[in-house]
């Protein structure tokens, strides 16, 4: 029983950064902007979070720093693609490349240092309930944030007027602009929100998942988060499901390696990436589903005529 609980807990820990980064990107893409820089913003969040936690000794300050780092870094993308109308694909790629380089440089002195870890929640009595106690009341704080965030984004996108406006901008920025909606302003806010989420996801990696700084520690999670948004056909609850499936794949291959299954460890390590490809193929085979849900102006630059 304990083993099952432990496995479920590690799956949740592996799924949380994917979920947060993907939920952030979902909002960005719903507004019609494709930010391929998730990996870069995530790694900046990871290094910022670790650094602030390490230097101040408080993982909570680390958490805030991770969020701020992601948001500030995404602002760079926003200025380029929204104010200067650059190609979103190329700009997102350069954000990732810059993030990987910058984080490597900033983190040189952090390599091998013990980091601060965010403590798990502990509520007397409740956390001590057998089995469900630790699952429901004994996880790290970012886990709870991720669940709340998913619910909040669902509510925001589909139950509020602002959410409706945001989705309408994603579907047709010209119509939205003609109606007097401030397209660029909405998109700025969406991109910054996505950046903050990616930063938080990176912070989870360096403050909870493995509380240390390793170069390129995101290991493609930002890209998997991007794939999750497509997989989820831009629906928050499907992102949640997808993140946990991928979390399970990630943990499953780690456990398989630990058990010494007679398969090369490299093959097992490549499973999450192969799974991403397979899942993308399966979802894109259903053309109608994809067509119906893809924000219609996704990735197109917009210059308001005045």
């Amino acid at each position, binding site marked *: 029983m304990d083993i099952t609980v432990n496995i479920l807990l590690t799956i949740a820990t592996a799924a949380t950064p994917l979920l947060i980064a993907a939920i952030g990107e979902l909002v960005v893409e719903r507004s019609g902007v494709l930010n391929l820089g998730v990996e870069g913003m995530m790694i900046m969040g990871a290094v910022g979070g670790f650094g602030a936690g390490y230097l101040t000794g408080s993982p909570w300050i680390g958490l805030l720093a991770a969020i701020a780092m992601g948001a500030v870094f995404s602002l760079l993308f926003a200025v380029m693609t929204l104010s200067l109308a650059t190609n979103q694909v190329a*700009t997102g790629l350069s954000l990732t490349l810059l993030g990987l380089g910058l984080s490597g440089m900033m983190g040189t002195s952090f390599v091998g240092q013990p980091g601060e870890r965010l403590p798990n929640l502990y509520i007397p009595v409740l956390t001590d309930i057998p089995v469900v106690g630790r699952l429901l009341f004994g996880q790290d704080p970012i886990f709870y944030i991720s669940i709340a965030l998913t619910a909040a984004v669902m509510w925001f996108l589909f139950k509020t007027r602002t959410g409706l406006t945001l989705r309408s901008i994603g579907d047709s920025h010209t119509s939205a602009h003609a109606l007097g909606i401030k397209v660029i302003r909405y998109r700025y806010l969406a991109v910054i929100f996505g950046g903050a989420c990616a930063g938080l996801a990176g912070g989870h990696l360096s403050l909870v998942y493995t509380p240390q700084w390793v170069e390129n520690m995101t290991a493609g999670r930002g890209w998997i988060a991007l794939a999750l948004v497509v997989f989820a056909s831009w629906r928050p609850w499907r992102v949640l499901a997808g993140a946990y499936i991928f979390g399970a794949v990630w943990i499953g291959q780690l456990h398989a390696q630990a058990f010494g299954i007679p398969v090369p460890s490299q093959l097992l390590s*490549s499973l999450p990436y192969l799974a991403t490809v397979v899942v*993308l193929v399966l979802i894109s085979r259903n053309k109608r589903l994809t067509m119906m849900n893809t924000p219609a102006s996704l990735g197109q630059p917009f210059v308001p005529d005045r």
Partner: protein
Amino acid sequence: MMRLELVKRPQRSMLFSALSPFIAFGLTMIAGAILFALLGVNPLNAFEIYFIEPISQVWQLHELAIKAAPLILIAVGLSVCYKANIWNIGAEGQFILGGIFGSAIPVLFPGFEGPLVLPLMLLFGMVGGAAYAAIPALLKTRFGTNEILTSLMLVYVAQLFLDWLVRGPWRDPQGHGFPQTIQFNDSAVLPELMPDAGRANWGFVFALVAAVLIWVLMSRLLKGFEVRVLGSSPRAGRFAGFGLNRMVFFAFLLSGALAGLAGISEVSGAIGQLQPVISPGYGFTAIIVAFLGRLNPLGIVAAGLVLALTYLGGEAVQSALGISDKVARVFQGMLLFFVLGCDTLIHYRIRLVGMALAKGAAKLDAAPKLKEAR
């Protein structure tokens, strides 16, 4: 509160089209100077170590050519993809698979020598790269799967596959357990161009030839026209009878083959054996090279040399000033950012307006329009 406003130019500006890479380079220098100053280094001193010392002697120019060759080879292939609006960002994986396929000959048949070995290896390398690039192309044409994500995911798979090969079945039994294959025999090593002067090998020649061939393809042949039409207006391309699916395969196979050639040239020329890591991110840096070269093969040659210098400079400042060689990646990232930003100037004029002023300006703008309407 200030705001940027873009005003569409009636036609693309030739001036900025030519100038923008240089403006971008200048801005990168300024940002770089700030970066060095923040790191507590005298920027002028750092620039000299970064940009001038690494190319002040003949043998160093050879090192520059070694680094530039794979960048140019990959980037000219990618430029065709990007012109066609097809996003192959997995060149790093195709590079690795090219290296693996080509190395199969010297690793599996170490006794096989003669003048046939190298051409076969290069051919195998191209086949390997093209075959690996065919996967995202197939998935995109058959199922409509996003090629950005699939081609990128395959990079991680390729890296792990190479890692498995050199630690497992292809490991040199006499290699004291080091994760590497046997050293290639002499006829499997890409010859150096001028062995007396430096280490540069035929890979650089391949890069220049590829750049010229792609330039001819893009500017003089129908296929190149097809690429440009499908890239700028897929609808118009369809009316002209150009097949988008065929183009996806063409672009991916071409760029994959060139990345594969770059991979095997690097392995058989600069390294001489397979190792767990055979590329310092050439496949990704080549994306920057392609854009800095304005997706023009001849521009890419120049851009490849510049980016190769950022690698050498990164190593130089690391050994001279103790700054992380990641500074190279930062320079490369900034350069791409500034290039993309400056490219906006080709199609738009940029106007800075204060928020309050903007409203007044809008009124002023409206007046002549009313006149026209009458």
